[in-house]
């Protein structure tokens, strides 16, 4: 089985989010980057489990600059065989999906995986776009994946229930919680990652269809009103009359 896992770097989940240059740029000062948790914990780890069980390779792919290399090495340390980086700034989803599809279209992957979304842009767009560009089915938000011969069985949360689906290869999936458990790379993995191939390739020329004009922080809460545990009637009255949510 040949699996491609799309990974991207995101600020560590404890990062304070601030902006510079008139609120047009993310303030990277003091920010640590990690592999997007959905890409790493769920997609990458499940891909590794599948090839460990029945053979094959796991390649990671990233559209990004050399500043992505440390997080790509982390994915290699966890166990991916090799990595591809398309050397461009990933500022628009269509642009990113197009770059990856141009690379993937001749490589005959059985499964192309993404995380369900990144925790910085939360777009949840790349998987679906890739599926369309590669003319494959897209199993979105999958939380379980089993392979049996020429078919895969997946589960995903849908409105009101859990849907079990079957699909033959190749296909694209986006991974959500439940698909696998986080793996901590060991020393051997970290050493091996240093010499695993990280192929940097040039982007193909494609337009960008969206751009972020500016960022804003949500209005802070104005302060908490404290109530005594014995004043729950008063709380209910405030929820009804003051904030009108019940």
């Amino acid at each position, binding site marked *: 089985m040949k699996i491609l896992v799309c990974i991207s770097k995101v600020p560590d*989940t*404890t990062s304070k*989010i601030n*902006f510079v240059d008139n609120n047009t740029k993310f303030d990277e000062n003091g920010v640590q980057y990690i592999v997007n*948790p959905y890409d790493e914990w769920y997609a990458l780890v499940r891909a590794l489990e599948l090839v460990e069980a029945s053979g094959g390779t796991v390649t990671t792919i990233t559209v990004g600059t050399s500043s992505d290399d440390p997080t790509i090495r982390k994915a290699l340390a966890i166990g991916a065989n090799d990595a591809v980086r398309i050397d461009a700034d990933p500022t628009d*989803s*269509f642009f990113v*999906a197009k770059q990856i599809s141009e690379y993937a279209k001749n490589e005959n992957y059985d499964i192309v995986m993404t995380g369900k979304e990144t*925790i*910085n*842009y*939360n*777009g*949840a*767009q790349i998987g*679906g*776009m890739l*599926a*369309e560009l590669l003319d494959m*089915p*897209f199993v*979105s*938000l999958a939380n379980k994946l089993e392979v049996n011969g020429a078919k895969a*069985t997946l589960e995903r949360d*849908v*409105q*009101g*229930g859990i*849907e*079990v*689906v*079957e*699909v033959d290869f190749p296909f694209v999936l986006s991974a959500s*919680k*439940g698909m696998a458990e986080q793996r901590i790379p060991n020393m051997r993995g970290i050493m091996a990652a240093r010499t695993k191939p990280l192929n940097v390739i040039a982007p193909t020329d494609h337009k960008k*269809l*969206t751009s*972020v*004009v*500016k*960022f*804003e*922080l*949500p209005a802070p*809460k104005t302060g*908490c009103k*404290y*109530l*005594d*545990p*014995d004043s*729950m*009637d008063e*709380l*209910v*009255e*405030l929820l009804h009359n003051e*904030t009108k*949510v*019940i």
Partner: protein
Amino acid sequence: MSVLVFVEIKNKLSKAAKEAITYGKNLGEVNVVTYGNASNEVLSQMGDYGAKNIFVYRKINEPNDQVVSKLILKAVEKLNSEFILLSQDQTGKSIGPRVAAKLEAGHISGAISLPEASDDFTVKTNVYSGKAIAYVCVHSDKKVISILPNSIQPEENKVDVSISEFEEDLGNGRIKTVDLKPLGDGIPLPEAELVVSAGRGLKGPENWGIVEDLAKSLGATTACSRPVADIGWRPHHEHVGQTGVAIRPNLYIAAGISGAIQHLAGVNGSKVIVVINTDPEAPFFKAADYGVVGDAFEVLPKLTAAINNFKASQR
């Protein structure tokens, strides 16, 4: 300007559908495309929100990604739609990007506002898991916008509707649904207006009765913090936060949750937050509108009783 809204309708008009049609009405004349076997009577209710022409594809009952994308693309071609609107729910997340990629149209996923009043087409979305807002500008002529649930207030705007069936056969997609395990008939978390959530402070799964009682008295959906789902006290789909479900209900009640930054990220879009915690220093109080310093085992039943009294007095 021609607007195409994709909606899913089971046996009644969903809130998501009303939100998307209302959004569309603000951009131009609204055409709707949908699938399934909802009656014409239910379909025509979309006219109350301003939908003029409704096209329904009756050959499928499940939202297969390839078939539904094809359906939307056919409708876009036929109607020469400039705006394609969906809801940012499970289906929207699998269809929106497909349609956008095919059309080479800029895609805004998770819009929380109508376009800004400016020359270029700019819409707000949540980024950094709700820790910030981005103003995203679309440069292409066609635009695919999926709307975050609970972001747009549905508005009635009655027009005469016409319903027609989409006759062409769009074939099958490769994904086959083999089973659908229902999770009860509660309102799913991303759409819920009222949410009652609890964390490790509840000490064990056997204590969730008081959380469920409060949820039941309010008609709320239940949620939990990540460790609670990870240790198996509650199902994964209840996990809210940066690495779980992001929610934006009108009311979020959190008991025995400390308010870690990753938890807050997924819930701080809630209009009103009530925090119940024994520790007056719990960080969650900084993000709360109302706080109760106290033991959840004592406060939750009292709050449930107060809600029940209030409901009885409303009758």
